């Protein structure tokens, strides 16, 4: 079998979280009752004209600047002409020849190391309405029509379905970090079309590509690409060839099928939108946006590894959201033990959040309480095992570790005399096992430890228990 190089390019649409739509004053909320957020402009009534929402431009610029793209300080809107019932004007206001942004890089991390995905064009456009079909009628809801969209097109530099998956994940993370979109792919706030082609190793020119549509989740994009890559390989291996066409991903059947061939693909007849002036942006305005940009996920990962000496994997998990990263940093700062903070957050805290479906900032455990808990273990006040019970109670009650330890008397027993007493008691109650121990069953040591812990309700310091037990046994 031949070796193939996989060439993938993605086209992503991100709905921008503005108060109002991109070209009219309607609320940008398409979950309201059908057609309640609509007006002559977004319904494409005759004579109505678009007026650009500056906020949408600002959010788009945040993204472009954050990923290191270049902003065209003079960009042009264009009409993309096609007929569809949910497209009221018969054209979509988009950008074509002089888009708002170009270039930029998205870094992703995988098992094989980091890679950089270069972006091609980034532009602003308007979303269409939504058609839905009932038994005897077709209906359209225009609430979504005019929602600002950011279109991001990558260079054809993605080399596997897995890489596409990681890339989309990172895009979602970035738009959330930048607070420009919910990034929710299931709700359509993030959408992705893909194109994929193969070329034999060493071959210079690209192969024929297919375009994939209708993927509704990040996982779906990965699955559709995997399927399509396999389909193309088997076609080529059988001596066939790939047709240039658009294919629809069928999630339930797990396969792609022809939607339209190249010949059937529409001619969008782009031309400059005469109803809008070229968009001119000043350097000072862009500088302000630049100043307000947050640290991006990959920058945080690098800094966490460097500053807190935690493994890259941990840093990746802790930076999955800005809120979680903040939570970690605050906790680590307060307790001064980043590795312990990281361990606690990645295990117990994330489990609590997952079970309760809460975000870090809504959690009943503020960073200072978690820091206190970590310190209580480190200074020997409680054992790690008890701490795991305490943290559950902290989450339920919002109490501090100190309050819980005090109320329940959970301080660790470090008094040697008390532990010695317990050890003596255990040994005298277990004459049988003691005999077997001395006969060579050394593993019973652990059993004795467990018995001592039980006697002390788990509060005895395990180090001391070990040491005292060893001494006592050696002394016999």
């Amino acid at each position, binding site marked *: 079998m031949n070796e193939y190089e996989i060439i993938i390019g993605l086209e992503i649409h991100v709905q921008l979280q503005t108060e109002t739509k991109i070209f009219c004053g309607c609320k940008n909320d398409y979950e309201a009752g059908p057609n309640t957020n609509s007006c*002559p402009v977004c319904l494409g*009534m*005759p*004579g109505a*004209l678009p007026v650009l929402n500056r906020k949408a431009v600002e959010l788009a610029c945040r993204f472009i600047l954050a990923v290191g793209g270049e902003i065209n300080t003079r960009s042009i809107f264009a*009409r993309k*002409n096609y007929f569809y019932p949910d497209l009221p004007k018969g054209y979509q206001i988009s950008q074509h020849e002089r888009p708002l942004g170009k270039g930029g890089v998205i870094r992703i991390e995988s098992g094989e190391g980091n890679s950089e995905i270069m972006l091609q064009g980034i532009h602003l456009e308007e979303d269409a309405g939504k058609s839905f079909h009932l038994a005897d009628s077709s209906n359209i809801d225009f609430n979504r029509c005019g929602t600002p969209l950011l279109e991001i097109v990558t260079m054809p530099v993605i080399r596997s379905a897995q890489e596409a998956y990681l890339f989309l994940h990172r895009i979602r993370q970035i738009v959330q970090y930048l607070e420009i979109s919910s990034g929710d792919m299931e709700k359509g706030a993030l959408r992705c079309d893909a194109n994929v082609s193969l070329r034999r190793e060493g071959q210079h020119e690209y192969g024929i590509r297919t375009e994939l549509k209708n993927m509704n989740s990040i996982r779906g994009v990965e699955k559709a690409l995997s399927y399509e890559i396999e389909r193309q390989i088997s076609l080529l291996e059988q001596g066939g060839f790939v047709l240039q066409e658009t294919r629809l991903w069928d999630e339930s059947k797990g396969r792609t099928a022809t939607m339209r061939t190249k010949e059937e693909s529409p001619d969008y*007849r782009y031309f400059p939108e005469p*109803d*809008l002036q070229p968009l001119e942006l000043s350097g000072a305005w862009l500088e302000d946006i630049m100043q307000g940009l947050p640290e991006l996920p990959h920058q945080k990962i690098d800094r966490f590894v460097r500053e807190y000496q935690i493994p890259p994997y941990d840093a990746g998990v802790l930076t999955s959201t800005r809120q979680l990263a903040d939570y970690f940093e605050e906790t680590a700062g307060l307790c001064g033990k980043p590795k312990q903070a990281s361990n606690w957050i990645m295990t117990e805290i994330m489990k609590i959040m997952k079970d309760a479906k809460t975000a870090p900032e809504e959690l009943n455990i503020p960073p200072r309480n978690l820091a206190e808990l970590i310190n209580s273990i480190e200074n020997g006040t409680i054992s790690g095992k008890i701490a795991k019970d305490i943290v559950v109670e902290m989450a339920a009650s919002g109490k501090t570790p100190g309050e819980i330890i005090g109320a329940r008397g959970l301080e660790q027993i470090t008094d040697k005399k008390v532990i010695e007493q317990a050890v003596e008691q255990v040994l005298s109650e277990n004459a049988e096992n003691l005999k077997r121990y001395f006969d060579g069953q050394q593993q019973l040591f652990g059993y004795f430890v467990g018995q001592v812990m039980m006697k002390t309700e788990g509060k005895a310091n395990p180090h001391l228990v070990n040491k005292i037990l060893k001494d006592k046994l050696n002394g016999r």
Partner: protein
Amino acid sequence: MEFESMSAAQIRASIIKGEFTASDIAEYFLKQAKAENSRLNCIISFGDSYAARAAENISQKIAAGLAPGKLAGVPIVIKDNLITKDLRTTCASHILEDFIPPYNATVIESLLKQDAIIIGKANMDEFGMGSSNEHSYFGRVPNPIDPEYVPGGSSGGSACAVASGLAPLALGSDTGGSVRQPASFCGIVGLKPSYGAVSRYGLVAFGSSFDQIGPMARTVEDCAILFSVICKHDPRDSTSANYVRPDYLEALKGRKKFSIGIPREYMAEGIDGEVLKAVQDAIEKAEGQGHEITEISLPHTKQSIAAYYTIANSEASSNLSRFDGVRYGYRSTAIDDLAEMYIRTRSAGFGAEVKRRIMLGTYSLSTGYYDEYYLKAAKVREIIRDDFDKAFNEVDLIITPTSPTTAFKLGEKIDNPLGMYLSDIYTVSASLAGLPAISIPCGKDNKGLPIGLQIIGKMFREDEILNLAYNLEREIGYNLKQ
């Protein structure tokens, strides 16, 4: 006193003095328009409720001792491609035959604020596409001077209504000459403002980068009054220009001295001898008024028709996509699927000329033809702008004929679209450059048909155009009744 010979200013004054009430005026004009319309067919829908409401407002204002608006009690006819809330707006098309808009154009709001009496919606060439008012779903309109002739277009109904005395004022819209040419053919005044001077919000788009709403009136003064009401920056139109508007009535006063250019390319082949003579006479009179006359050159005039029709039709092909039968307007019922709905609705909904232009425009924007047509035309447009820039370095205003001929006969050019397009030769250049231009009457031919003179000005210098037009109007002493 005959209401129909009164100017807008006279009507307003008479109401304020209490000689007539606004409802006297409204009722008289509505009644008259309805009676005349069977012959003229220049009104598609009548504005009874608008007129009654305005008359009521004016009475209340007067009773309360408040000053009524600038157009108080003045009847006006509105081209039917301007959106009027709750009043049918058809664009003279079958596809919008029953369209009743839920909103107002910005200019309509301005008129209502100034207490104008909207008499009705004027007939026109469908969607503004035509130069003769023969391309209307609601039938053609005769020239009021001789019914054998066309009134011009596309604002033919507006021009006919004003020339016939159905209203002293009208609003038209001008894409490549649609206000100026019918004004010229009907012997009235019509101003195409600078692109961006008047809001396009609520003007049903034809060629968005050309379209301007323009005032039409029997006199330059009335034209200036109406212009001063509609010329405003509008945040709802992104192409509306934001600058301080001068007082256009003040601008009429005095006799400013201008340097006037006469483009040699306009006074050449293709022009009717009588038109040429009338325009030359007017130029002489201007010289007599102390203006300095220079010959200038606008070398790319010949390319303007091709550039104009390519760009305007390209924009139109896209602008008219919204008429798809989905949300409003006519929808064919004999349909099985989506494609059929589009095809049948648009085939039956649009007239032949509109479909011709949609096809031409679609072609010009198509992959493989875009560079050769749309893009090339856009480049020519820049060159024509440069021509004007150069000319306006030397002169303040430019005088040309409005049209190479007087009105042509009904049916004369209906089967010759190219011939019809070529008659726009003198008006499209200013449209390509976005410049303001007025047409004022300057004579009649031997058939008694009016001849129009065009004055083109610098960007946003309607004040200069109006001053010269006002002084020439008095000098020429042109009167329809003569």
